[in-house]
């Protein structure tokens, strides 16, 4: 199956962060978008760069790397970021929330 956005996300994150763990999951099917959409993603990223950074700073780095992809085509991005030492202790990631229909009248930017 053709997944241009997911491929682009994966490539950029790989280049930027040289991650030890990278999971990119398309969660678009859980939201009010057409089948096959690539709008809502969940990313789990473990890399050395995150050591010593607060969560907010880690997310800002990711948003920076993906700037031209947001808010379109990527509308929502659930981020779970770990330094390698944290990942060893607790490699568990919570599930993302389901849609509440807001995007029927609003097509942009949440997470």
């Amino acid at each position, binding site marked *: 199956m053709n997944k241009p956005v997911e491929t682009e996300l994966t490539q950029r994150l790989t280049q930027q962060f040289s991650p030890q763990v990278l999971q990119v999951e398309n969660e678009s099917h859980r939201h009010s978008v057409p089948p096959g959409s690539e709008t809502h993603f969940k990313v789990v990223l473990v890399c050395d760069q995150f050591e010593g950074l607060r969560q907010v700073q880690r997310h800002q780095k990711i948003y920076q790397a993906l700037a031209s992809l947001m808010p379109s085509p990527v509308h929502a991005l659930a981020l779970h970021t770990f330094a390698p030492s944290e990942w060893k202790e607790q490699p568990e990631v919570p599930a993302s929330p389901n849609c509440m229909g807001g995007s029927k009248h609003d097509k942009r930017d*949440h997470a």
Partner: protein
Amino acid sequence: MDVIETIKQQLSQNPIILYMKGSPNAPQCGFSARTVQALMACGEKFAYVNILEHPEIRESLKTYSNWPTFPQLYVRGELVGGCDIVTEMYEKGELQSLVKDAVAQ
């Protein structure tokens, strides 16, 4: 008033403020719903802005904070994060103390 000035004023006048889609009682997005739920569970008063009703704030805030999505929670003028961070902090008990300290100050 300039939009950035409005944002700065909101941040300085409200120790806890959530920029979200919808309102706390009627969130318009699952991410906003989850965030507001965690915040309400902390038991302190907070301000909110429904960014669906304020498109100019919505656009400016993204640049101001270097954060492209909503919700965005600010405590004492500083960006705490979006849904993932706020939820995680709540589960660790960190959000409760952050919020209580902000109100106590």
